């Protein structure tokens, strides 16, 4: 599989440093080589994805993990921008949020979120969820290549 040859680039959009740190630890143990990029708000996420200053040299991620409640630009707005942008829309976006409100779930699927996951409050459970995302999206799923 081509995925074994080059690292998978993952963009995590998360304003909680504790959650970001845990996700990083969980992905470090992955069987698959991956690079995790972390941005802390919605505006930074869009700059990263559009390779705007200071992100001119980054590669487009293969997978995006997106929180909903973010400073500056809300996660729903970020999702909408990604999924209506011809160059970005094929990148899978996994919503990873504290919310379990039906309205959020329904709205984000309508905006073409690829899947919606509620973050468990328990830290061990949170790590398990990140590993489950990694297992499913990096080993079972075929990610699009064209986003690069």
């Amino acid at each position, binding site marked *: 599989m081509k995925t074994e040859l080059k690292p998978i680039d993952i963009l995590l959009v998360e304003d909680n440093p504790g959650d970001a740190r845990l996700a990083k630890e969980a992905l470090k143990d992955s069987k698959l080589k991956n690079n995790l990029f972390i941005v802390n708000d919605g505006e930074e996420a869009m700059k990263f994805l559009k390779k705007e200053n200071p992100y001119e040299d980054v590669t487009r991620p293969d997978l995006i993990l997106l929180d909903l409640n973010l400073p500056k630009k809300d996660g729903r707005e970020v999702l909408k921008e990604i*999924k209506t942008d011809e160059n970005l*829309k*094929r*990148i*899978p976006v996994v919503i990873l949020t504290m919310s*379990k409100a*039906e*309205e959020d*779930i*329904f*709205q984000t*699927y*309508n905006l*073409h979120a*690829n*899947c*919606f*996951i*509620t973050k*468990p409050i328990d830290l061990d459970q949170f790590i398990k*969820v990140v590993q*489950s*995302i990694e*297992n*499913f*999206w990096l080993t*079972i*799923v*075929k*990610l*699009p*290549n*064209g986003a690069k």
Partner: protein
Amino acid sequence: MNSKENPSTPINILLVEDNPGEARLALEALKESRLKNKLYIMEDGEEALFFLYKKGKYADAPTPDLILLDLNLPKKNGLEVLSIIKHDTRLKQIPVIILSISSAEEDISKAYNLYANCFITKPIDLDKFTEVIKTIEDFWLSTVKLPPENNEKI
């Protein structure tokens, strides 16, 4: 972590697959699931749309919670079915998992551009195929929150 409020409500899965052997294997794999689920199997793209639009004999069919969709289907191919689902405001929130023998980058890219929720290449080995179905079940039915059923309320 299941999104269903009532755990006794089965999760309705629509499998669109023209190969009876694979459909049978998927059925077997899902039968062993911890989560109650009901699998509906349609053998071509047209039939899948009749089911989704509750036409004719499908008047009482449930709206599925999850769709597993093959690409090479008789009558109407999988990408066409996908495009119709993802352009319909009443259907587009249903997650669609593409399950195809194809691993062509063009198919993968096209499917994601049409808002497929994920793309999985079917392993040829039958045991591996069963494993993949179980992994899909485990991820989508227990880790993911599926869209709420009564979306009319929202």
